[in-house]
């Protein structure tokens, strides 16, 4: 032990002389080589040691100089070879942190070979703990990047397709749970959460009225304007009233409003439930003996099922009003003629066909939103994904439902 220490001292003594006399190779950055030499910049110098290798580190070996240090060290790593002894002297290092300590340790490891262990010398007492710590914990990590293979891609596609059935089962599951909760509330009316339902009704219905009315009004205007513009060529201006009435009451009114509600309220439900899930609020409810479906989801579903018919009705009225206004101002169809024609063109059937779809679409939007909300996992990213997925699925199912209804009503002759 003593002998080794003596040897180290000797080496370190020789370093001092050698550094002053003739640095053999100097690893410097381009900046330093150009003469922009700063005293604080890290350096690593090779000192002639006969058969052996001796490197002398100096300057600041800290995070701030990490890019420079990395280049210096990777250059020095090329000196690997079989030698009787290898020393890295760090007595000239003015400051050292984890980055510097690790890079010195990395250099030491890569210069070592099975027969000769490289040694670090000249370590001051306060840095030796750091170097020891880095030596203890540092290891080259095995980073296994996922190779982009065809098998992997196929697997991904397979999983996605298999996931679709899972989604459908999840929706049916939630529908069942909501109906069971609703039945329970019918048996025990005291457990119904009226305050919560009214609160959500305000959020999804009352507060949605301005935007829904505005958008449907504009859509009504556009349909009317386009209809008049094209029908005028055949002198069939007045038929725009038929088109507007049937289109708005049967399809556009409810479909458009449902899409808006999916975007507006479906996303809000998913985000609310998702963040509650993330913060374990839903688990807390469950442990207190409450059913989250009954407490959180049933009031939301009910609010949505009540809100959508109301919004669809208001939307249809706004669209008819907008269409009528454009027909009058742009097409010269005065309001009296418009109303007369409208009464002839549409029957109560058209209105029923439209409004009957609304609660069903609301239920679909609500169930999709709640399933997605409860599927949120710990991360903010997951919340974003599920909210997106809630809106996309909600709109998709609304359109699918609309198609199913169209076939149904056509076959019963309504």
């Amino acid at each position, binding site marked *: 032990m003593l002998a080794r220490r003596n040897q180290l001292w000797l080496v370190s003594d020789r370093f001092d002389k050698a550094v002053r006399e003739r640095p053999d190779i100097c690893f410097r950055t381009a900046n330093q080589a150009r003469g922009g030499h700063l005293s604080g910049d890290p350096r690593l110098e090779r000192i002639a040691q006969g058969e052996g290798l001796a490197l002398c580190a100096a300057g600041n070996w800290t995070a701030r100089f990490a*890019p420079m240090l990395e280049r210096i060290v990777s250059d020095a790593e090329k000196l690997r070879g079989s030698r009787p002894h290898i020393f890295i002297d760090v007595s000239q290092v003015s400051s050292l942190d*984890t980055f510097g300590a*690790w890079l010195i340790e990395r250099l030491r490891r890569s210069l070592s070979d099975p027969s000769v262990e490289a040694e670090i010398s000249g370590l001051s007492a*306060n840095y030796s703990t750091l170097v020891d710590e880095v030596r203890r*914990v540092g290891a*080259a*990590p095995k980073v296994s990047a996922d190779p982009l293979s065809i098998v992997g891609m196929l697997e991904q596609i397979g999983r996605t397709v298999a996931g679709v059935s899972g989604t459908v089962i999840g929706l049916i599951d939630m529908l069942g749970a909501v109906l069971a909760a609703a039945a329970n509330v019918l048996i025990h009316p005291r457990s119904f959460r009226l305050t919560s339902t009214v609160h959500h009704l305000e959020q999804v219905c009352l507060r949605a009225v301005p935007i829904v009315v505005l958008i449907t009004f504009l859509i009504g205007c556009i349909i009317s304007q386009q209809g008049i513009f094209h029908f005028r060529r055949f002198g069939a201006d007045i038929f725009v009233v038929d088109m507007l009435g049937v289109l708005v009451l049967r399809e556009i009114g409810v479909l458009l409003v449902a899409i808006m509600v999916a975007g507006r309220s479906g996303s809000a439900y998913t985000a609310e439930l998702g963040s509650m899930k993330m913060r374990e609020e839903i688990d807390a409810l469950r442990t207190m003996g409450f059913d989250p479906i009954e407490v959180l989801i049933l009031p939301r579903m009910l609010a949505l099922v009540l809100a959508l018919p109301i919004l669809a009705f208001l939307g249809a009225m706004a669209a008819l009003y907008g269409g009528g206004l454009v027909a009058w101002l742009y097409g010269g169809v005065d309001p009296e003629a418009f109303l007369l024609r409208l009464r002839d063109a549409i029957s109560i059937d058209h209105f029923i066909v439209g409004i009957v779809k609304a609660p069903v679409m609301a239920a679909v939007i609500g169930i999709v939103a709640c399933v997605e909300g409860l599927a949120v996992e*710990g*991360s903010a990213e997951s919340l974003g994904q599920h909210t997106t997925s809630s809106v996309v699925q909600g709109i998709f199912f609304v359109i699918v439902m609309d198609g199913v209804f169209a076939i149904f009503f056509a076959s019963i002759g309504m």
Partner: protein
Amino acid sequence: MAPEIPDAIIRVRDISVRFGTTKVLDGLNLDVKRGEILGFVGPSGAGKSVLTRTIIGLVPKISGSIEVFGIDLDAANAAARRGVERRWGILFQQGALFSSLTVRQNIQFPVREYLNVSQRLLDEITVAKLGMVGLRPEVAGRFPSELSGGMIKRVALARALALDPELVFLDEPTSGLDPIGAGDFDELVRTLQRTLGLTVFMVTHDLDSLYTACDRIAVLGNGKIIAAGSIADMQASQHPWLRQYFHGKRARAVMG
């Protein structure tokens, strides 16, 4: 007022913070010495976290000045502020790990922003930092939601230490850890402070931490520092809250 400390790494002078009509901090003065572990205690709701957040610039103050590393944070321009922010690390109470990034990415995030180093060095430093906070390299691929409470604290500490800061703020580092885990954490802070030469500003409720990890203790009450000094000074103090805190049932248990 506490006597002036010449080589203070944080110098807080006369700061006041108000939320609505409640004054949380009222003309508070505090110095933190370079290289010490300062334990910061006080009753719940006294404003310990508020002071931490004020120093790091997350809560606006209505008066007073804050100097960190000798730089007045109000007078500093954006570049100087960034320079200061690079030199400190913060462990938030809940960890505040980025939930959509893995542990590895969380630790590498500040390094990648500030230093232009290779992916290889980033990965190696990540493993070293994880090792320093007592975690195995396998944890690196996990997401924060897959970690236990103690692991979150450790990863958050590793992230706070990612750039080798000179100053670390720890907001209740041992809260929510079991006593053994908390003891390990204190030991860890102590070791890191010794190896990296850190200055540590630690908000805590944990008497064990005060006894085992802290060099000096500052006590917050009524919006001011009511006492600052060694653990012996605290025990000798006649202030009613301090007497209760350091001579209560739990304190006696800790002192054994």
